[in-house]
């Protein structure tokens, strides 16, 4: 029932994080992982700048993990989110869930990502390849709609 939540500037190693949830755990039958990357947006984007609300970001991720645990009997959960300047092709976010079976591991992983996108206090700003500072990324309706399936 281990939970790992980290908000950090540095990159992370998805394989090492996944291994930490399964090593010496013969009770684990399923591990799902999600890794989110910075896209280049057809070559227009040179970087994303990620801002967060220190303190609340950790609390909110913990709240989302607690909610997932109420819904599914999963085992380990790891949620990592980076902040600062992130280049196209680099990792931004990572969620891993281990469990006895794939159903709950898949569901909890997707649930955590859906709520992370709409309620964890992070904001993205674009930097353009022409050197100009781009706009703050706007929240998407599709992300709000994604929550409806969990009601």
């Amino acid at each position, binding site marked *: 029932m281990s939970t790992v939540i980290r908000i950090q500037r540095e990159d992370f190693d998805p394989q090492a994080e996944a291994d930490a949830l399964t090593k010496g755990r013969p009770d684990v039958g399923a591990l799902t992982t999600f890794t989110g990357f910075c896209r280049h947006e057809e070559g227009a984007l040179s970087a994303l700048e990620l801002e967060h*609300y220190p303190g609340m970001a950790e609390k909110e991720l913990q709240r989302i993990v607690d909610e997932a645990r109420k819904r599914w009997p999963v085992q380990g959960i790891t949620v990592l989110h980076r902040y600062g300047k992130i280049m196209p092709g680099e990792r931004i976010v990572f969620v891993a869930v281990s469990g006895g079976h794939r159903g709950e591991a898949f569901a909890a992983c997707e649930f955590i*990502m859906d709520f992370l*996108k709409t309620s964890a206090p992070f*904001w993205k700003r674009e930097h353009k390849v022409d050197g100009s500072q781009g706009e703050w990324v706007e*929240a998407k309706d599709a992300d709000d709609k994604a929550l409806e399936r969990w009601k």
Partner: protein
Amino acid sequence: MKAVYFAWVRERVGKPEEILTPPASVITVADLIAWLKGRGEEYAYAFENGHVIRVAIDQTHVKHDTPIADAREIAFFPPMTGG
């Protein structure tokens, strides 16, 4: 109470945080936003579409009709775009 601002709300207000002392007539989050809008053009700009601004009291999301009574820290920010 301490107010903290993030992303474009912070940029428009022109500072990351400040101490606010609203009058006693300010009861709810919505009242506070209306009061802030009257503090200058940077606030009027930041809160021009006040209903889209998300608010957290002591690091927990709240709705605009929530009383601010015991708030130590109140945060204002745009809809979130992490992940």
